Each structure stands twice: as structure tokens, then as C-alpha cells.
């Protein structure tokens, strides 16, 4: 009897680990394909391009992943990004005019203001979702139009220029070890969140609330607190994504993030997060973001007529996932026998 159960535990662990392994495998296949189609894929500048796209996307994906793990949805990612971008740009510029010269301070204040704005927006989402008992889909759709509406009202659609050069050149385009600084920022965020979700009670509680809110409540966890915290955290993450894009394009823009909600949900779902909550791992979500970044870059590099690019992207999305599932089923069958 002992053997059976150990066997079972082992088999489960194997299955999970294998799962984590297949997305990189599919990504690896795509990269391998690119060697033949377009060797320029591996140029230093191109790799930076991919990684920088990844760094913004990974933040939105992480934000969405967290919210989905706790059983929710966040359609307001994009609007929070835009808000953070505009708020931080405005702050930087007004501080610039008050205390000129101290560029570091300008940037710090700008980033701080953007993140605080994001946190507040997240807090609003969290409060509404946890208190109103209305579907998070509707609530975040509402906050989305409120936030983006007020951002437009403030900027009238005009971008905000004149940000410190340091931000654009050193942070937006800067490199360490030949890789973009932004990539390391994203990597750090992934590692920290991974740690939090796996190693701390808070992480466990988040999964529990997403998996079965009633059981979590009956176990002495306060789902409302968890939901509130996660949405706030996700607001901060979307704000950081907005800041990354601000640093890259060099201006505060109210129009950024229009695709962010769909893109981030896609990354999270590819990363194995369940739309029904309680399931999903942070590194896999990041891999999902990497997958999307690579595909988008690949399509642009592969000289495909851009009108057909969306078609190829569509097939890629569906069949890459189909292949991933198929291979993993194959492996599971090979290792454990039976019809999977």
C-alpha cells in the first residue's frame, strides 16, 4: 500500500514538472526554426528587442495571472498602464520645473507617483470586487472606462513630452551585461512573486481563495483581505508595465495599453492559469509572456506579409498550444502508460 501511494505522489510531481517543461520546449522549437529562417533573430539588438517587449508584457501577464489565480479578472490593466504613464510623466515634468537639475529625484518621484496611482486603482478594483459581489469582469470593465475616461479628459489625447533623458536613455534603452535593464527588472519581479506565491502563507492563501473561497473562509482566511491585496498588487504591476513603456517611448501617453487586457489574459492562460481560479504558476505565466513576445518578433522578422501575419499568429496560438498538450500527453503516456 505504501508503494502505491508514494508512486502516486511521485507521478503527480512528475506530471506537474513535465507541464512546466513543455512551454520552454515549444519556445525552443520556435527559436530553432528561426535559426533556419532568419539568423538575424540572434543579433544582440534583436534579442534586446524581444526581451524588452517581454519585460512590459510580463508585468501585465503577472498582474493578470495573480488576479486570475484568486478567481478574478482584470480588464482595467491597460487603463491603469496609461494612467501610470500620464501621472508619472506629469509628476516628472512638474517636479522638473520646481527643482531643476536633480534628475534622479525627478525620476524617482515620477515612478513613485505612477506606482501609487496604480496601487490606488488596484485598491479601488479590489474593494469593489470584494465588497459588491458582482462579477469582476463587470467591475473591472467599469473601472477601465472610468480610468481611461479620466486620463483622456486630463490629457485630451495629447502625449506628455520632455521627460528626463536619463529615463529614456539609461533605463529605457540601458543595458547590463549586454541585456536590457528592463529585462532584469522583469526577472526580479518574476522571482519575487514566485517566491511570495510558493513560499509564504499569503501565497498559499491566495491559491486557496481562488480554488474554493468557502473552504478558505472556513479555514480562517479572510477572502476579502486576500482579494483586496491581490488587486492592489496587480494595480502596482500594471503601473510598472505602464512605466516601462513610458521609458521606452519617451513620453507619457494616454493611448497605451489598449490591447493589454486580452494580451495579458492570453499570456496567463498559455502559462496554464485556470480561468476558474486556484491554479497557475508564476514562472509559467512569465514563460507565456515570453512565448507571445517571441512569436510577435518571429512573425515580424520572417518577412510574412503583414496582412497575413494575424492569420499566422492565430494558427500559431491554437496549434502551439495543441502541440504542447499533445507532447505532454505523449510523455505522460510513455512514462506512466495507459490512455493518459
Amino acid at each position, binding site marked *: 500500500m505504501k508503494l502505491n501511494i508514494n508512486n502516486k505522489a511521485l507521478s503527480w510531481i512528475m506530471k506537474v514538472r513535465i507541464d512546466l517543461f513543455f512551454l520552454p520546449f515549444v519556445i525552443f522549437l520556435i527559436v530553432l526554426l528561426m535559426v533556419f529562417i532568419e539568423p538575424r533573430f540572434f543579433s544582440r539588438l534583436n534579442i534586446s528587442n524581444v526581451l524588452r517587449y517581454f519585460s512590459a508584457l510580463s508585468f501585465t501577464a503577472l498582474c493578470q495571472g495573480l488576479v486570475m489565480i484568486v478567481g478574478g479578472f482584470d480588464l482595467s490593466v491597460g487603463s491603469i498602464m496609461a494612467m501610470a504613464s500620464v501621472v508619472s510623466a506629469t509628476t516628472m515634468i512638474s517636479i522638473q520645473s520646481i527643482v531643476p537639475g536633480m534628475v534622479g529625484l525627478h525620476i524617482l518621484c515620477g515612478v513613485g507617483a505612477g506606482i501609487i496611482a496604480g496601487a490606488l486603482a488596484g485598491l479601488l478594483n479590489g474593494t469593489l470586487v470584494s465588497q459588491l459581489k458582482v462579477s469582476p*469582469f*463587470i467591475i473591472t470593465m467599469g473601472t477601465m472606462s472610468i480610468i481611461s475616461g479620466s486620463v483622456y479628459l486630463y490629457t485630451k489625447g495629447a502625449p506628455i513630452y520632455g521627460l528626463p533623458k536619463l529615463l529614456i536613455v539609461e533605463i529605457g534603452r540601458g543595458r547590463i551585461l549586454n541585456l536590457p535593464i528592463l529585462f532584469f527588472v522583469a526577472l526580479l519581479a518574476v522571482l519575487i512573486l514566485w517566491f511570495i506565491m510558493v513560499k509564504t502563507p499569503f501565497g498559499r492563501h491566495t491559491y486557496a481563495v481562488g480554488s474554493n473561497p468557502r473552504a478558505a473562509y472556513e479555514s480562517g482566511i479572510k477572502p476579502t483581505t486576500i482579494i483586496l491585496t491581490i488587486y492592489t498588487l496587480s494595480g502596482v504591476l500594471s503601473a510598472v508595465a505602464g512605466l516601462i513603456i513610458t521609458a521606452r517611448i519617451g513620453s507619457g501617453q494616454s493611448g497605451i495599453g489598449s490591447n493589454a487586457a486580452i494580451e495579458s489574459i492570453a499570456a496567463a492562460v498559455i502559462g496554464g492559469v485556470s480561468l476558474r481560479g486556484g491554479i497557475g504558476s508564476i514562472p509559467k505565466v512569465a514563460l507565456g509572456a515570453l512565448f507571445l513576445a517571441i512569436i510577435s518578433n518571429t512573425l515580424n522578422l520572417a518577412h510574412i506579409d503583414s*496582412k497575413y501575419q*494575424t492569420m499566422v499568429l492565430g494558427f*500559431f496560438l491554437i496549434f502551439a498550444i495543441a502541440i504542447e498538450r499533445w507532447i505532454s500527453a505523449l510523455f505522460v503516456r510513455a512514462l506512466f502508460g495507459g490512455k493518459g
Partner: protein
Amino acid sequence: MNSALYKIIHNSRRFEIAMFMGIALLLIGFAMKEPTVLSTTNILNVLSQTSYLAIFACAQSIVILVRGFDLSLGTTVSVVSLFTALVMVSLGAFSIPMGIAAGLLAGSIIGFFNGYCVAILEINPFIVTLGTYNILLAVSSTITGGFPVTGLPTIFPKLFSEISIIGIPIAVIIAVLIIVTLEYLLLNTVFGRNLYLIGSNPRAAHIAGISYKFNSIVAYILCSFLIAIGAILLTARTGSGEPNLGSQLTLQTIAAAVIGGMSLRGGEGSMMAPVLGACKRSRGILGAQSGALFSLR
């Protein structure tokens, strides 16, 4: 006695009654502020606008019922519109029925593709329909090079958009017919029951011998078929095949369904939900209108 009362209210969907009353109250409110809002032409106008959204929202609700999604709704509308128009323009006689048939067929094929990927390949519906969305986007912007198709037979818009029967616009009549039929089918057929059961607990449904694969595929086909009907009506409304007729509809339909009471977790809700949701959204239209009129005063 308490429980009898409860049963009556429960069975007759208190939520929906409340929603209806809310909408009615708001209408009265608007009317007091701005009486022309309640003029018959305006009401009919708003009604027919609502009916398109209601048809699309019903389509969306069917897949939401089985824990699905259709993100490709918007581009499906565009593709069907173009297909219908192209066929109508290129064929002489019989062009209208052939065009409609082509549109419905295109819709069903799209639905089958979605259903196949979701049910047989077991890929998450979000990813599948996002993929289809992209594929159809390419289709709709390449078959005519991004340009609309004009020159439809003039009788087509007359028949399917402008005509009204006893004063009620045709779109409203068709929408009501569709909604009533769907509601009836969902409540009275095995297929409808299966959708609810699968949506509620797919595993239990499987063990009770209900085929997830078959029913899901049919649900997706039905969804896209309804989208095609809506798209054809919209094409009649604009009088031309349009490559970007519905790109923003997707989110609106999901919102309408959820506002009306569909659960994104599946297995709950009725066809009144999307309709109510759509009405709520047109209450928004009315609100904006009365605001605009008010400012004109």
C-alpha cells in the same frame, strides 16, 4: 405559505423582474427629464439598435453557458458581412437567398472550427477564439483588401432593415423570434438541458453519459450561426459588406450577458440575461441621448 410564496418568486426569476423594473423606472426618469426621448420613433429606433446587440449577446451566452467564450464574435461579424455581400454582388438572380446562405454557412464553419478546437483538441476557449479572432481579422481585411463591398441589391436592405410590420422594425421582430425560440429550446430540449448540466459540472455530466464533445461543438456552431444572422441583419442595415463591422462588439456582448445575470463559471442563466443586459446598455444610449438633447435646449 412562506415557502409557497418563495417558490413563486424564485421560479419566476426575481432577479430578472427586478432588472426589468429598474430599466422601466429609469425610462420613466428620462422621460420626465426629456419627453421627446419617449417619442415612438425614438423608442423604435432604440429598440432596433438593441435588437442587434441582443442577438449577439444571446450567441455569446450560449457558449458562456458551457464555460466557454467567443472572442472571435466581432471578426466573425465582419467576415460574414463581407461574404454575404460578396456573394450578393457577384450573383445576379437569387442573389439574396444565396448571399444569406453563404453568410450562414460561413458562420457555421467558423463555429465548427471553434468547437472542434475547444472540445476535441481540448484547448482553452479563450486561446482558441483569440486565435480565430486573429485569423478572421486577416481574412476580413484581405478578401476585399480592406475595402467595403458596395452595390448590394437595393431590395436587401429594404427587406431586412427598413421594413416594419405593424410599425415594428423587422430587426426587432427577428430578434424577438430568435430569443423566444432559443429560450424555448434551452428549456425544453435535451440539448439545452445538456448545456446547463455540462456548464454546471462537466465531470458529473460526463459520468451521467452526456457527451461533452458533441454538445460543445453544437453550442459553438449555434453561437456562430446566430452571430451570422445578426451580421446579415447588420449588413442590411448598412447596405454594404463591411470589413470592420463588429470588432468592438465582443466585449460588449460578454458584458451584456454578465450584467444580465449569466455566470462566467457556466451552467447558470437564461436567454433573458443577454437581452436584459443589452437593454441596460441601450438605457445608456437613451441616457446619452437625453443628455445631448438637454444640452441642446
